[in-house]
């Protein structure tokens, strides 16, 4: 159960192995898929989404030894800031805002930790940052369903599957935000690169947590 899984994350806060493992999992999945993500971005954007994300995760990796010393909420916030300062483009502020906001919400929540609530606030912040709504063919079209699963207290495997499906569903959408929006109808028929990276990261995180706490 995700709820249980996440709870464990916060119980073992400042667990260097855990933070380090999350960083490594994300970095690896992006490194392995960078070309694919840029390829997707080439169809409806400017062809750099994989490069951008890789640059961000490499910057986080450089900070790894400092980050693993921090409490998890603070670590998330710092990872977010590092992404903001290194990714650039649209993806930097969006992923940055997501992590900064999750971190802030969690560190604010004294005692009782409500991950679903923190995620909701963070996803809303991302939507505000991007002036985007569900259905606009962006990474929000993965974040919202993921949040829904977390609320439903779905298992890690379920979350992973929903994220994947949600990313695929962006194929049929007409982009209303980001560079793809300038293509109008020509954006239909392609997976959104940001949605795809979001699904990949979700899967990598879920896989890592699954290994930590096998069902």
């Amino acid at each position, binding site marked *: 159960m995700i709820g249980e899984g996440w709870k464990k994350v916060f119980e073992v806060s400042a667990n260097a192995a855990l933070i380090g493992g999350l960083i490594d999992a994300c970095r690896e999945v992006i490194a392995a898929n960078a070309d694919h993500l*840029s*390829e997707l971005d*080439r169809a409806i*954007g*400017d*062809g*750099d989404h994989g*490069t*951008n994300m890789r*640059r961000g995760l490499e910057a986080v990796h450089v900070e790894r030894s400092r980050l693993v010393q921090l409490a998890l909420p603070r670590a998330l916030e710092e990872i977010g800031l590092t992404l*903001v*300062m*290194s*990714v*650039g*483009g*649209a*993806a*930097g*502020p*969006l992923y*940055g*805002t997501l992590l900064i906001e999750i971190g802030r919400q969690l560190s604010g929540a004294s005692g009782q930790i409500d991950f679903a609530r923190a995620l909701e606030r963070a996803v809303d912040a991302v939507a505000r*940052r*991007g*002036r985007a709504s569900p259905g606009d063919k962006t990474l929000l079209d993965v974040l919202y369903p993921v949040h829904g699963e977390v609320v439903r207290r779905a298992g890690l495997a379920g979350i992973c599957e929903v994220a994947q499906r949600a990313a695929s569903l962006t194929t049929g959408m007409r*982009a*209303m*935000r*980001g*560079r793809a*929006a*300038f*293509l*109008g*109808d*020509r954006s239909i028929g392609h997976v959104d690169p940001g949605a795809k990276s979001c699904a990949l990261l979700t899967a990598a995180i879920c896989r890592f947590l699954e290994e930590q706490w096998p069902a």
Partner: protein
Amino acid sequence: MKKFMNRSETLVAESLAGLVAAHERLVTFGADGKFVRRRSLRPGKVALISGGGAGHEPMHVGFVGRGMLDAACTGHVFTSPTPDQIIAAIRETDGGEGCLLIVKNYDGDVMNFEMAAELAATEHRIATVVVRDDVDPGGSTRSQDRRGVAGTIVVEKLLGAAAEAGWGLDALCTLADDLNGRIRTMGVSLRGVTVPDTERETFVLSENEMEVGVGIHGEPGRARVKFAAADEIVETMLESILSDLAPPRGEGLLLFINGFGGTPVSELYLAYHSARARLHSLGITVARSLVGTYVTSLDMAGLSITVARLEERELSLWDAPVDTAVLRWGG
């Protein structure tokens, strides 16, 4: 893709270093090389900061100097600069009168400048202008989504002259908002471009096709149509532009033909000739002109036409002295 470069990771930095060295009289690198700034900052004026992804050279770095920008932040190719660059520029150029951030309307630029403004807000008075000069993409996207394209340098020139003349932050913002309704640009492309990182063309056109309504990031445009004679292309572009421009109020008209990087200047002047003749035939007189390769999309073959309706006061701001690497006139 054959480009004069060493590695794609370093090409932006090497190119910027070249520009700064070649124009050392005018500009210098800011702290940690995060941005390029005017060599001699003038205290007592609002600081004007712009920036965006690389690949649009000479914009924005070529417009740093007296009478235009105080600083420009450059990101990777077609990737907006990051907030730390913008924050560093704010810190170094704010002389107490506040900062005006001039941002082209692209989601990435808007979000990065916004985060920078939020993070620096406690220590600096900051206002932001989002330039939206692209012609209405015609319902294919949200209408607030006009992109900021070549018209951006018209805005930068006018605001730069006004800031130099001592205008305050609020007055500059009012002017900028007003200009957004009176400057329109439309671009056409004859060839897609290759982003150095991807080594793939953004789109491929056949010998008799062109892409109309393109932006400046190599992205395809509003439609792909048959290539035509210059007069015909220019006529269609002007039609879109004029129908999208706020109705005239006795202003003077600025006509600006901009090359996208791979178009020889002789073709730009030919397009200018055609556009000017077309406007005359519509009874419209050209009051000011600019022709050149100023706002590019790597080495894209293509051009954009910008029409700006300027009031008397703004024509004076246009004529005011400017001393930058690229634009230079007046005393």
